[in-house]
């Protein structure tokens, strides 16, 4: 091993080593003297200077949280406000005995066991001299009691901060969203300096999407403290800059009418202003009170919301994905006409069943039990009465490629780009999609299922509203938007507006058919035309929740209500000069014409009324 072993001289090696160690010790001695001289210089020679400086050194720089931007609806009503909240905080370093202090506080105002537990948890992980919250949301009386007794409550302090408040409570929970405490994961991604005075962050909805605009710019203040660190006065202040205010396209009145029209049913509705793409109402029912989250929601309340069968936290309007059912028929009708797969004169004979060559089992019409829609069914009749067999034939003649291409242009199968976080894309099935998602090739049966909005196809209520707005506007492609203006300056519609080119004759034809869905004697939504002084164009739809065998008949009386079909409705109004488009679903509502269409009617009525007498709103 030892390469030069023959020449090694242990005694000499050791002497060298000891010599070297001696040099090292000498160096240590010298450096120690250098260090001690430095400390002597600081602590003895210049002690007076530093002692004076330390006595003066009572100036702290503290961050000042900016007020968060406010959120208004289109009429200037406040949807998200800042209000002062008073917290009882403790700095343990300044109290003689924490437990007796908490005892004293509990005698004056009530402090619950869970408050104390949370406080002790936080106490373990705080920095020295940091205020730790014992109780939030002090009432005025409680503050007065604490003020009077402050002399014997050393270490306890009442501190004010602005917290978010949502005056409309559950009405805008799914669009405006809510704020909550910055959690550990978020604290790793945010800029610590920008948030130095802030404890909350937008968690969902617009509060999250527009976080950077709403936040504002943090300010700072230099404060002088006394010997024990209590703030005596503010020396210098760099004011914070409030966050940007948002004005929304949303209309509180329409929103309320829409939400209340659900009357306890589960579902979602999206209403779009056709001209701008602005969202007038975005309803997901049931909803929840976002104010619960602002000061930290209790576990009990949170579990209640999280595990409720009705899933109130789930935003059905942009995240709920449902088969569109027959609401897709006007779009596919347009597609077939535009791609010359059928003409307006083309008719079929419907006996209630559709047979495809080579497949033994037929596809049913929804009214196959009563013998179908009879002879001479053309596209208009197929839309008005919602004939499935006609659309099976139409789908096969048009082909999935055309159906999918047009559907994508009308906003299906991909996110619409609305200014809300968490939107889902739905599914517009195609050959490529099926190969990618399922690893299978496309069958004719898939086309037949898709042609009545079933099978693999999924859409969100927002996508249905966008699709309807694009049909109503004869192909104007606009991105749906919730925010109308930032700090009073209109964002304006997208500079680039796409256009779907289809012959005007076909638009006219399909628009007329949709109008007749509501206004003709055999239309599936005729129930809502009574007393209408304007005209609505629409299309009903039904989406199966459980699959029914071809031989069985769907019979709601045999099923639980939660297995009933979903009812859908898409519509725009006024029919001759479209202003507003709606897409909506009532979960387990059974039939679009009976349960979904009346909700749309209520929203249209409110919209037409407000246009007749514009409400004057002053800020």
């Amino acid at each position, binding site marked *: 091993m030892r390469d030069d072993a023959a020449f090694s001289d242990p005694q000499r090696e*050791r002497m060298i*080593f*000891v010599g*070297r160690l001696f040099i090292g*010790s000498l160096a240590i001695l010298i450096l120690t003297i*250098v260090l001690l001289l430095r400390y002597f210089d600081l*602590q*003895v020679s210049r002690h007076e200077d530093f*002692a004076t400086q330390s006595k003066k050194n009572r100036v702290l720089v503290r961050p000042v949280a900016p007020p968060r931007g406010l959120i208004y609806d289109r009429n200037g009503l406040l949807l998200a406000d800042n209000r002062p909240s008073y917290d009882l905080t403790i700095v343990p370093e300044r109290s003689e005995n924490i437990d007796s202090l908490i005892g004293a506080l509990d005698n004056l105002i009530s402090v619950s066991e869970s408050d104390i537990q949370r406080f002790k948890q936080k106490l373990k992980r705080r920095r020295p001299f940091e205020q730790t919250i014992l109780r939030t949301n002090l009432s005025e009386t409680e503050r007065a009691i604490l003020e009077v007794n402050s002399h014997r409550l050393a270490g306890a302090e009442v501190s004010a901060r602005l917290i978010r408040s949502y005056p409309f409570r559950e009405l805008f929970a799914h669009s405006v969203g809510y704020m909550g405490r910055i959690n550990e994961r978020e604290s790793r991604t945010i800029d610590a300096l920008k948030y130095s005075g802030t404890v909350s962050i937008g968690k969902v909805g617009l509060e999250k999407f527009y976080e950077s605009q709403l936040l504002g710019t943090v300010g700072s203040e230099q404060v002088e403290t006394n010997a024990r660190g209590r703030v005596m006065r503010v020396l210098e202040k760099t004011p914070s800059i409030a966050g940007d205010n948002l004005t929304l396209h949303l209309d509180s009145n329409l929103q309320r009418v829409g939400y209340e029209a659900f009357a306890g049913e589960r579902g979602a509705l999206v209403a779009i202003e056709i001209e701008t793409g602005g969202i007038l109402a975005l309803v997901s029912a049931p909803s929840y009170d976002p104010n619960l989250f602002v000061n930290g929601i209790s576990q009990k309340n949170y579990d209640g919301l999280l595990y409720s069968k009705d899933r109130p936290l789930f935003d059905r309007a942009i995240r709920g994905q449902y088969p569109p059912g027959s609401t897709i028929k006007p779009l596919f009708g347009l597609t077939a006409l535009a791609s010359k797969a059928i003409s307006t004169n083309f008719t079929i004979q419907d006996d209630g069943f559709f047979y495809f060559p080579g497949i033994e089992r037929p596809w049913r019409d929804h009214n196959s039990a009563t013998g179908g829609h009879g002879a001479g069914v053309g596209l208009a009749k197929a839309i008005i009465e919602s004939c499935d067999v006609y659309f099976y034939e139409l789908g096969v003649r048009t082909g999935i490629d055309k159906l999918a291409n047009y559907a994508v242009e009308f906003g299906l199968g991909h996110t619409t780009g609305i200014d809300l976080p968490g939107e889902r894309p739905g599914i517009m099935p195609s050959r490529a999609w099926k190969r990618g998602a399922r690893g299978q090739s496309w069958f004719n049966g898939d086309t037949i299922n898709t042609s009545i909005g079933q099978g693999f196809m999924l859409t969100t209520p927002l996508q249905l509203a966008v699709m309807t707005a694009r049909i109503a506007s004869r192909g104007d492609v606009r991105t749906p938007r919730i925010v109308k203006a930032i700090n009073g300056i209109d964002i304006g519609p997208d500079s680039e507006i796409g256009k779907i080119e289809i012959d005007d004759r076909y638009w006219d034809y399909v628009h007329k058919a949709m109008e007749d869905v509501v206004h003709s004697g055999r239309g599936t939504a005729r129930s809502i035309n009574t007393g209408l002084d304007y005209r609505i164009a629409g299309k009903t739809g039904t989406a199966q929740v459980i699959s029914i065998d071809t031989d069985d008949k769907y019979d709601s009386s045999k099923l639980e209500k939660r297995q009933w079909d979903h009812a859908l409705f898409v519509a725009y109004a006024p029919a001759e000069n479209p202003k507003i488009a709606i897409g909506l679903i009532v979960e387990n509502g059974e039939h679009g014409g009976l349960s979904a269409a009346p909700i749309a009617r209520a929203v249209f009525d409110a919209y037409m009324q407000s246009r007749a007498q514009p409400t004057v709103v002053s800020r």
Partner: protein
Amino acid sequence: MHRYDFVRQLNSPGGDRKRSRAMHVDTPLLLLLLALCGIGLTVLYSASGESIFYVKRQATFMLFGLIVMIAFAQLKPRFWERWSLFIYTAGLLSLVLVLFFGVGAKGAQRWLDFGVTRFQPSELMKLAVPLMVSAYLSNRYLPPSFKHILAATLATMLPVFLVAHQPDLGTSVIIFSSGFFAIFLAGLGKRYLISTGLLVIAAIPILWFYVLLDYQKQRVLTLLSPEQDKLGAGWNIIQSTTAIGSGGWNGKGWTEGTQSQLNFLPESHTDFIIAVLAEEFGLIGVMTLMLVYLLVIARCMFIAINAQTMFSRLVAGTIGLTFFVYIFVNMGMVSGILPVVGAPLPFISYGGSAIVTLFIGFGILMAISTEPKRI
């Protein structure tokens, strides 16, 4: 050898000595380390804002470190000599892994995350490098030839650069020192020493313009004139020198230091904890701590001189000298005579992994000190 007599007197009387030898415990060293732990916990209580939480955690780390130290003391020095190449290679590999898969905080990648536990390879390198270099050189004819010096230098600089790249300047300084001391103690010739010195001076401009990151340069500039950057990088130095200076001879008293208690002093329970001690216990406190440190180092030297093999000698001497580098770098940076590199004060600063590494080092020393004499 009369100049080491004062250290010898630290030995406890005969009966206990036999028992502690059987357990491979070096009693004087153990007592000195316990004294340091005691001082550390006392200062930490005040520096953390009278937080029992931190004190309990730190005491747990110390207890764990003590157990690990005594466990490692049972291994023979021969074991370390045999395994040094393996430990070093494993450490080097994990440093490379950190480069690619490391996790970290404040912009530095230092840890490997195994899910259950985190592992900081640079800590391992603090011991692996002196063990490796000592094992390599002690098996060569001494004083080392140019070829062997070159090999040992390479073995030292590789991890130094990897750790500096993380970036963790404090640790890379420690690793560099430990490798250098091992070569130096093995008998590095005078002409090498002088040429190395010249080389270092020549390297300074290269380091400045090509190696050091902006924030590291900023720290050097801050050292030269802290007043220029009052609220930025200079803040720490202004506050820590004020804390130290205002302590005077006797200090302001335990938990009475306004600089640290009123939150003016940053990192007061970790890297800057000496400022708390200086503020609250004065120059007397600083000198007392320094005395205990010097006694620890003296004991290391004593063990090194009486060690049985060249390997043991080199390891013990290196650990002793490196221990001083910890102290000098930390106390120098807090008092404003060295740039701020992240370096904890041994046994006093809060932090688990550094303490455990220190204890392991002293465990190896105890193994050397209690090795049976060869005849």
